[in-house]
């Protein structure tokens, strides 16, 4: 019950703006502190007996890869909010999340390929995991192209919502089909049956970094949503002024 009332309260953009104005400085500070701790711990983590110092790329790579998929799920929830509940901020949330998700996906690809060069001997391999993340990246770009193709934001919002939900169904299909097709990337080692296989000296910095990156996403997302709301207000004010001058 409280969740629905909170969501209804947030439907008012002015209330959302004032709330986020109060929350954002704290979130930014928390993100900066956690990132600092995580980076410090990652730097102190021991070298791997096989991979040497390159194992430290993992502390950046894995949180980015997790978030690349998490952001699409956030956008899918926002798409449901647009289509089903017609929540006025849902399309703002979906639109603001897409470039951030694309950036996380891009960073996951770049750090992975930097790690792959010394370890696998190649920057790029048509491996299952790499390919499906690349397709995820393409779908983010397609979604952003869709947002940019239409001037009317509410019309673009509904089209983008349909595409986001279809993409949410398709992503697991792509993941498994590509798994079946070709594979080189190592299997999951943190969230698996029977507990993580990762040593504690790597696991703790990794989890700190994962939380820090999630906070980074929340901070960037809220800030981007504020910008989008303000951008829309500026747009409607400009329209009003233009029509007044015409009259």
């Amino acid at each position, binding site marked *: 019950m409280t969740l629905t009332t909170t969501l209804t309260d947030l439907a008012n953009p002015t209330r959302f703006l004032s709330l986020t104005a109060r929350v954002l400085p704290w979130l930014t500070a928390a993100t900066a502190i956690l990132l600092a701790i995580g980076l410090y711990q990652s730097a102190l983590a021991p070298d791997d007996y096989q991979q040497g110092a390159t194992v430290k790329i993992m502390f950046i790579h894995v949180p980015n890869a997790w978030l690349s998929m998490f952001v699409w799920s956030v956008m899918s929830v926002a798409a449901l909010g647009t289509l089903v509940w017609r929540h006025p901020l849902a399309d703002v949330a979906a639109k603001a999340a897409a470039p951030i998700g694309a950036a996380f996906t891009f960073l996951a690809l770049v750090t992975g390929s930097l790690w792959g060069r010394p370890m696998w001997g190649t920057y790029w391999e048509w491996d299952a995991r790499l390919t499906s993340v690349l397709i995820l990246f393409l779908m983010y770009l*397609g979604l952003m192209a869709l947002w940019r193709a*239409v001037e009317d934001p509410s019309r673009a919002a*509904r*089209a983008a919502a*349909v*595409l986001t939900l279809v993409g949410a169904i398709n992503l697991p299909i792509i993941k498994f*089909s*590509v798994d079946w*097709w070709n594979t080189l990337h190592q299997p999951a080692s943190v969230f698996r049956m029977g507990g993580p296989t990762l040593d504690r000296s790597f696991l703790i910095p990794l989890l700190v970094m994962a939380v820090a990156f999630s906070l980074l996403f929340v901070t960037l997302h809220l800030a981007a949503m504020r910008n989008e709301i303000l951008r829309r207000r500026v747009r409607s004010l400009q329209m009003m002024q233009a029509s007044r001058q015409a009259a």
Partner: protein
Amino acid sequence: MTALTALIRRDIRIALRVGGGALIGVLFFLTVVVLMPFAIGPDLALLARLGPAILWLGALLASLLTLDRLFMADHDDGSLDLIAMSRTPLELSCAAKALAHWIAAGVPLIVATPVLGLLLNLDAGSTLAVALTLLVGTPALTFTGIIGAALAVTLHRGGLLLAVLVLPLSIPVLIFGVAASEAAISGPVSFGTPFSILAALSLVSFVVGPFAAAASLRHGLD
């Protein structure tokens, strides 16, 4: 039911007549396949090895090319609004239109496959296998494609945007289509497994495609 059969018959008739453009897809398919030896070189052994992949890529691109006509013409002359307002559920009408589009534009591609297989040095068995996988797989391409077609018509944008949106969705179909053809021709994997997954993808797209297309039409037409 009669409304749906009438819709299917009407769409097929429009597609096959002058200005319909369903057969342009076959011509495009032929051109893509003919282009390949110029890019790869006229090495018959290599062409035979790449044959199934070339045929699948050509069919994918050809079915993409004709997609944006699916709702556009109906939108321009206003009949899409009539279809949306009629008592038949919009999901069923979308499914009927997709089926008609597949019959008019997809089946000719499959019929053309044996001839094109000859150009690519595929033997009769391999060509038959590719044609069979296309028969099972192209409905999935059409039924996921109508989502893109519906988005394109509500946004008044076709062409490249449609391609960018639809192509990533068709990757699984391509993977399993080529895998099944390869398995039938040479592969150590049995033909049945990728073929059944291909059929499953088509069945899933029968459900998801019309609903998503109808949703985007309903929200987008006003």
